[in-house]
C-alpha cells in the first residue's frame, strides 16, 4: 500500500499552529525546500503517524491521508484522524468514497466486510479503532492501514555516523535503524548473492569496492563486542575499517545494505529518508538516488525522501518532486499533480529542477 496524499495541521487556534497542505505522492518522492520550510517536519508527520498506529508513541495531530491499496487495484482509502489532548476526537475511513468507519470520541460505526452490515461500537476515548477492533475478515481495511504503519521505515541519512552503533534488541531492529546496519550485514554474510549485489551497487555509485564484510569486535572489557563493517577498495592494499571509513561512504553503504535486503526479501515497505545525499559528493549523491529509484522500480516499495542537494534534485524526474513553500505556519506543496500547467511551463524553460525554487516562477505563472 502506498501513501498518496497528506494534509496535516496541529495546534489550531494556538500561536504554535502549523499546517502542511497538498502533498501528493507516488512511488518515488523527493521533498525539496529551503531550510526551515518543513521538510523534516513533514517526514515526522508521516513517521509519527506510523508510530501512533503501532502504539509506539502517543501524540496529538490532525491527519487527512489517502492511500492506494496496491498498484494493481483501484482501492483508495481516505483516512482522517484527529487527536487532541491525547483523546481521539475523530476517526474516519472511506473506501473509494464510501464511509466505512465513522467515529467521534466514544461513539462510532464500522462496516463489516463479512456481514455487510454497519455496526455500532463504543471505543475507549484514548484508543484508536485500528488498535482495538482488529479482525481480518470483518475489517480488512484496518489491517491494510496497520500493515502500512508496521512496514514504514524511517531513517535520517545525515544521522549515520561511523562511530555510532545501534545494537538491535529485536530482530526487526535490524531494519529500523541505519546505525544497526553492521549487524544486518553480519547476518547477511552467508548470502553471497546479496553481498555481491551490495558490492555492485557501491561500484555503480562510484566507489571502487571489491569486498564488503562485517565482524564482531571487542570494544572494551566492560562493553563486550559490537558488529563493525569493513570494505576492501580496489586501489588500496588493506581493508578500510568502519572507524576510518568516510562518513559519506558509510552512509551510502548502510542505505544500500538495507535497500538490497528489502528488495531481496520482497518486503512491501515505505522507506522515509531525511537528508538523502548529505555527506556525499555531487556525483555520488545523484547516483545513489538513481540507484534507489532504479532498484525499487516495479516493487511494492515507496520512497519518500527529503533533500536540498541540487545535484540529487537535478538527477530525478521533476514529476517526482514536491517543492515545499512556507508562509508563516502554512506550508504548501507544489507538485506536478496540483500545478500541472506551471510545471509544464517550467519544463519548457529547460532549467534545472533545482531552479524551480527561484523567483522566476512568478514570471512563468503570468
Amino acid at each position, binding site marked *: 500500500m502506498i501513501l498518496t496524499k497528506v494534509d496535516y495541521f496541529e495546534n489550531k487556534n494556538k500561536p504554535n499552529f502549523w499546517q502542511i497542505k497538498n502533498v501528493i505522492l507516488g512511488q518515488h518522492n523527493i521533498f525539496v525546500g529551503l531550510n526551515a520550510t518543513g521538510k523534516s517536519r513533514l517526514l515526522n508527520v508521516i513517521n509519527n503517524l506510523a508510530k501512533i498506529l503501532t502504539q509506539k508513541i502517543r501524540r496529538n495531530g490532525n491527519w487527512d491521508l489517502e492511500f492506494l491499496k496496491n498498484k494493481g487495484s483501484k482501492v483508495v482509502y481516505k483516512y482522517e484522524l484527529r487527536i487532541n489532548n491525547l483523546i481521539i476526537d475523530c476517526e474516519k475511513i472511506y473506501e473509494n468514497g464510501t464511509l466505512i468507519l465513522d467515529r467521534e470520541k466514544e461513539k462510532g460505526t464500522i462496516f463489516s466486510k463479512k456481514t455487510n452490515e454497519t455496526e455500532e461500537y463504543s471505543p475507549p476515548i484514548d484508543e484508536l479503532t485500528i488498535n482495538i477492533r482488529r479482525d481480518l475478515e470483518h475489517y480488512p481495511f484496518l489491517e491494510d492501514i496497520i500493515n502500512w504503519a508496521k512496514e514504514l521505515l524511517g531513517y535520517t541519512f545525515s544521522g549515520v555516523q561511523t562511530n555510532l552503533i545501534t545494537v538491535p534488541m529485536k530482530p526487526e531492529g535490524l531494519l529500523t535503524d541505519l546505525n544497526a546496519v553492521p549487524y544486518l550485514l553480519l547476518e547477511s554474510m552467508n548470502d553471497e548473492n546479496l553481498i555481491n549485489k551490495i558490492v555492485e551497487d557501491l561500484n555503480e555509485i562510484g566507489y571502487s569496492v571489491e569486498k564488503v564484510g562485517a565482524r564482531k569486535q571487542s570494544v572494551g572489557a566492560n562493553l563486550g563486542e559490537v558488529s563493525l563493517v569493513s570494505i576492501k577498495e580496489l586501489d588500496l592494499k588493506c581493508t578500510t575499517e568502519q572507524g576510518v571509513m568516510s562518513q559519506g561512504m558509510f552512509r551510502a553503504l548502510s542505505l544500500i545494505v538495507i535497500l538490497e535486503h528489502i528488495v531481496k526479501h520482497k518486503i512491501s515497505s515505505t522507506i522515509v529518508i531525511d537528508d538523502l545525499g548529505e555527506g556525499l559528493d555531487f*556525483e555520488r549523491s545523484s547516483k545513489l538516488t538513481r540507484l534507489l529509484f532504479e532498484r525499487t522500480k516495479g516493487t511494492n516499495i515507496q520512497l519518500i525522501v527529503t533533500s536540498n542537494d541540487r545535484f540529487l534534485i537535478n538527477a530525478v524526474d521533476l514529476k517526482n518532486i514536491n517543492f515545499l513553500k512556507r508562509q508563516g505556519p502554512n506550508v504548501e506543496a507544489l507538485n506536478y499533480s496540483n500545478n500541472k500547467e506551471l510545471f509544464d511551463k517550467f519544463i519548457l524553460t529547460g532549467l534545472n529542477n533545482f531552479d524551480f525554487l527561484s523567483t522566476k516562477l512568478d*514570471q*512563468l505563472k503570468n
Partner: protein
Amino acid sequence: MKKIAFFVEGHTEKIFLEYFLTEYLAPTNYTIDTYLLVGDNFKTISKGIDYENPSYYFYIYTVGNDERVSSAILERADNLMIKEGYDAIIGIRDLFPNNRTLLNQIQNSFESLFSDKEFSHQIFLFVSIMEVEAWFLADYNLFLEPPVEITIELINETLNIDIVSDNIETYRNPTTVLDRIMRLGGGSYSKHQTEVHSICSRLDYCFLCFDVTFYSRIQAFNNFFNVFNTILEDTA
C-alpha cells in the same frame, strides 16, 4: 576583440563547434577555450592559441551530466555579459526527448528568462531538431567516402530513407539513423567522443553552411548560422 560564449549540452555539440569554428573562421586570428561543468564550477579543458590580439575569443562551456544549458546560462549571464563584457551568449541543445510541437514554446520560455535583462537581445538558444546529429546527416557525402564508403542507393533501400532529399529534421532519432547508416559500412555510432571526432573532422562545413539546398533540411543549423554571422558582423 569580441567575446562569444557557447553553452552546450554535451561533448557532441562541443566537438562539432570546435571543428565548425576552425573551418569557418580560418585564417582569422581567433582563440577557443573549452570548459566542462564539474559540480558547481567550470573546469578548464583546453586553452586556445594565445594570439596577441585575436579578432574573436570563443568560450565553449560543456554543461553535461544532469545539468541544463538554460540553467548554466541563467546562473552566469549577468556575470558574463555585465562584468566580463561578453558580446553574446549562445546556447545549443537538442529538442529530443520533447515533442517537436513544443519547439516554439521552448524558445519562448527560454527568452522569457532574460526578458527583464538589458542584454536579452544578446542571448540566444538554438534547438537542434531532434538532435545535433541531424546536422551531421545533412552532409550525406560523409557516407560516400572512406571509411564508410556506401552508396545512397544502399541507404535508401536498406533503411527506407532518402538521405539526399528528406527533411532531416523529420527524423525522430537522428542518432539512431546515423548509427544504422554507419553500420551499413561496418562501423557504428553511439555518441562516443572518438566517433564524434571522426565524423566532425570529415564534415564538409562549406557544403553545410552555404549549399542552399540544405536550408530547408536543417532549419535549426541555418538559424544558428545566420545569427552567428550577424553576431560576428555586429561585433567585428
